[in-house]
């Protein structure tokens, strides 16, 4: 049996750990709140742009643009959205496991695909496996504004236009609610499946021409798809971290409970032993 002092030390250190995890949980909870607000304020923009893109791309049949056309796939781009830091439960590992499996199933050689990594965990994961991400961004703030991610988002879309890859998939964790986040795969480019929400398509005058508008609009649309996923991923990250830290705190409490029980038992045993010794000693004197 461990000595009293040993148990005492373990109790203290576990208590300290649980304080930290508790604090992290609360921090993540408030970050999650903000992230949800951000994701919500992005919705009107996304809906609007989707509506306009749909009414132009579907409304006028004779208009076309390189981003709307599927071309033979020589190379595939994978945009993987992970976090910079760990301690978020299975958040990163479930995304990475899924992506890696997909990549291995679809491709035989490393020349058939490229990876773009958002977040340090993702970048390092691929580096460990000998896949260097062609673009990566780390150190994103917890509440990224569009200006923060503009660079990577634009580069991702440009790389498609330049022909570095012929299709682009995006992997991120979709925020369902605080306890559920789903790993999601989404094909971003080419824009073959433009959703028409609401279904009311208006016909427009184009100034100067539909082609030139698509030229501006489609990259912006693709960029906003990616930005939306980034916001979604951030919300999931905070939610995952919150749950993980909640579990850690609960576990620590449980551990403290068991240890306290052990400690009290040991203390009791020590006292009992002392009494027995005293009684034994007194009895020896009397006789």
């Amino acid at each position, binding site marked *: 049996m461990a000595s009293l002092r040993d148990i005492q030390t373990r109790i203290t250190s576990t208590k300290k750990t649980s304080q930290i995890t508790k604090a992290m949980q609360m921090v993540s909870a408030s970050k999650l709140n903000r992230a949800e607000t951000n994701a919500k304020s*992005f919705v009107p923009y996304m809906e*609007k742009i989707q509506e306009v893109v749909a009414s132009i791309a579907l409304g006028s049949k004779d208009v076309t643009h390189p981003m709307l056309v599927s071309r033979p796939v020589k190379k595939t781009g994978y945009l993987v959205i992970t976090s910079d830091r760990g301690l978020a439960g299975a958040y990163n590992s479930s995304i990475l496991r899924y992506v890696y499996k997909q990549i291995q199933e679809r491709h035989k050689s490393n020349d058939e695909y490229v990876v773009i990594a958002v977040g340090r965990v993702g970048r390092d994961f691929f580096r460990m496996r000998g896949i260097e991400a062609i673009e990566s961004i780390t150190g994103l703030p917890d509440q990224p504004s569009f200006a923060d991610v503009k660079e990577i988002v634009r580069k991702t879309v440009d790389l498609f236009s330049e022909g570095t890859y012929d299709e682009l998939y995006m992997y991120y964790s979709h925020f369902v609610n605080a306890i559920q986040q789903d790993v999601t795969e989404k094909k971003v480019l080419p824009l073959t499946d433009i959703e028409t929400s609401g279904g009311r398509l208006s016909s427009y005058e184009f100034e100067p021409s539909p082609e*030139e508008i698509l030229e501006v609009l489609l990259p912006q649309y693709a*960029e906003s798809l990616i930005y939306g996923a980034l916001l979604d991923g951030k919300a999931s990250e905070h939610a995952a971290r919150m749950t993980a830290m909640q579990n850690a705190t609960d576990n620590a409490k449980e551990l403290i409970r068991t240890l306290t029980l052990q400690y009290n038992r040991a203390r009791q045993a020590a006292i009992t032993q002392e009494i027995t010794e005293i009684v034994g000693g007194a009895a020896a004197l009397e006789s």
Partner: protein
Amino acid sequence: MKTFNVNIVTPDGPVVDTNVELVSAKAQSGELGIMAGHVPMVAPLQIGAVRLVSDGNKSELVAISGGFLEVRPDQVTILAQAAEKAENIDVARAKEAQMRAERRLQDNKQDNVDFKRAELALKRAINRVSVYEGKL
């Protein structure tokens, strides 16, 4: 005068949602003025200022960087990557960006990509500063 609703939306959230009589914006093909009852239209915008006129002569300026304008019979929507009302512009930051872009333009005239990017950054910065100062 007849008014209509104007929405300016960015990825970071809505910036403007008011009723106005006239919207004037700089499209890529030239200056556009839109009043109530305009034909439905879509036009890409230049980096520049959008002027919202209400109550006859009250006008408000909004700095817009990259985006487009959508006109519906009862509503005008501007979708921009960034938009700020004059009073919300961080002018110190814009001036700093302007100086940085100017320096970069002088430094590397040979690199095309960077040149273009610096040029755009300069345009955005100048636009913000001039909207803030109300000169336009």
